[in-house]
């Protein structure tokens, strides 16, 4: 199911883009991307992230922002953290794919803090939402307990006032434009009725949403 989300989100990326992949479902996307067409940026200081290494290739000083061992692609470069976030915040990265705990009708994302627990980690998500050109949220449609994650207003602390542009789940894909959430694609194994039943947020429905399993407008 998570891989299905990853595959659908991967289809939103355009050849030539520089893309930052967050922790969680987004890390599953790499295998669905053409490595010559998509350049992966990792905020710990690498442009040109490659696949996981073989045992022989593994280098403890070559990791991604999820702290997993990686390799590097030809044409990659290393840089310090201030430069890396200058790229992200400054609008030089074409897209980021992030996980989320909630997304609301305004497109706002909550993915860093849970009320009642001390907030001890934020990482780079706030900077990514502040600056990356296209933000895609890739998440399961409901929580482990079956509660909708697409809600009218986030009840968890938001990560940014900047809305996400796309929201991809195992059931559907939504576009967030100026006027709110719009359902643009329904998974072939799902239905508009199911999407409605498992979504607490209001959304418009694109007339062609049911026809778009392959290829988005």
């Amino acid at each position, binding site marked *: 199911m998570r891989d299905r989300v990853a595959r659908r989100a991967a289809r939103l990326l355009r050849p030539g883009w520089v893309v930052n992949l967050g922790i969680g479902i987004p890390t599953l996307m790499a295998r669905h991307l053409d490595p010559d067409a998509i350049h992966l940026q990792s905020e710990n200081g690498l442009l040109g992230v490659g696949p996981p290494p073989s045992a022989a290739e593994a280098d403890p000083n070559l990791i991604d922002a999820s702290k997993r061992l990686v390799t590097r692609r030809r044409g990659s470069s290393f840089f310090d953290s201030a430069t890396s*976030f200058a790229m992200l*915040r400054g609008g030089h990265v074409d897209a980021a794919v992030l996980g989320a705990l909630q997304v609301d009708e305004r497109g706002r994302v909550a993915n860093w803090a849970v009320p009642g627990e001390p907030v001890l*980690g934020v990482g*780079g998500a*706030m900077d990514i939402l*502040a600056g990356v050109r296209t933000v895609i949220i890739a998440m399961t449609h409901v929580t482990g307990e079956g509660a909708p994650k697409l809600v009218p207003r986030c009840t968890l602390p938001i990560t*940014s006032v900047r809305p996400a542009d796309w929201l991809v789940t195992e059931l559907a894909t939504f576009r967030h434009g100026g006027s709110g959430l719009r359902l643009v694609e329904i998974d072939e194994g799902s239905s508009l009725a199911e999407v409605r039943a498992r979504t607490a947020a209001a959304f418009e429905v694109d007339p062609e949403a049911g026809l778009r399993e392959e290829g988005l407008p």
Partner: protein
Amino acid sequence: MSGKLLTPEEAIRRTLFDGARVMVGGFGLVGCPLTVVRALNESPVKDLTVISNNLPDPGVYLGRTLLLGKVRHAIGTYFTTNPDVGRAHVAGQLEVTLLPQGTFSEAIRAGGAGLGGFYTPTGVGTLLAEGKEVREIDGRSYLLERPLTADVALVRARRADALGNLVYEKTARNFNPIMATAARTVVAEVDEVVETGALDPEQIVTPHLFVDHLVIARERL
């Protein structure tokens, strides 16, 4: 060979003191100066403010510094992966200041560059904006963030020359080059010290004027 070379123990003894603000490089343990942090843990210094992305890892290195009760205040971006941080914080033994990672990086750079602060769009409208000035500039909202500086920075590089010029190793670069600019005294742990002139001047990331002391690594990842 290099007038800047010290043992890790000497480097800690000469630079750190009770109550010091100390920056420590690394994204997790990658780029963390392991040898120097171990010497810190074996020294009597305490009441430290540690400015580091995390306090890695549970029970070892900076995680051990925490368990030894040497850390009064941690300033960083992501302490979630070390449950001891949460425990010490809940127990009232550890003050934690959380910054978005880009703001943290930029604040360190600003500290090194002599700036008084900067406006960033990151964090506007979130819990981390609490108590911070919000300012509208050309129709967009920004938070005023203050520079971070320290008494001492402990950084990790791949190689130094005898003057103290530094080059780094892959993603172990991370916060190290900016921390090397933002502290009064900078200790760089390196795998080797080569003779002056052996590093390509186009390739030096940290020029020697930022580096006070060099330490040879005794342990690596």
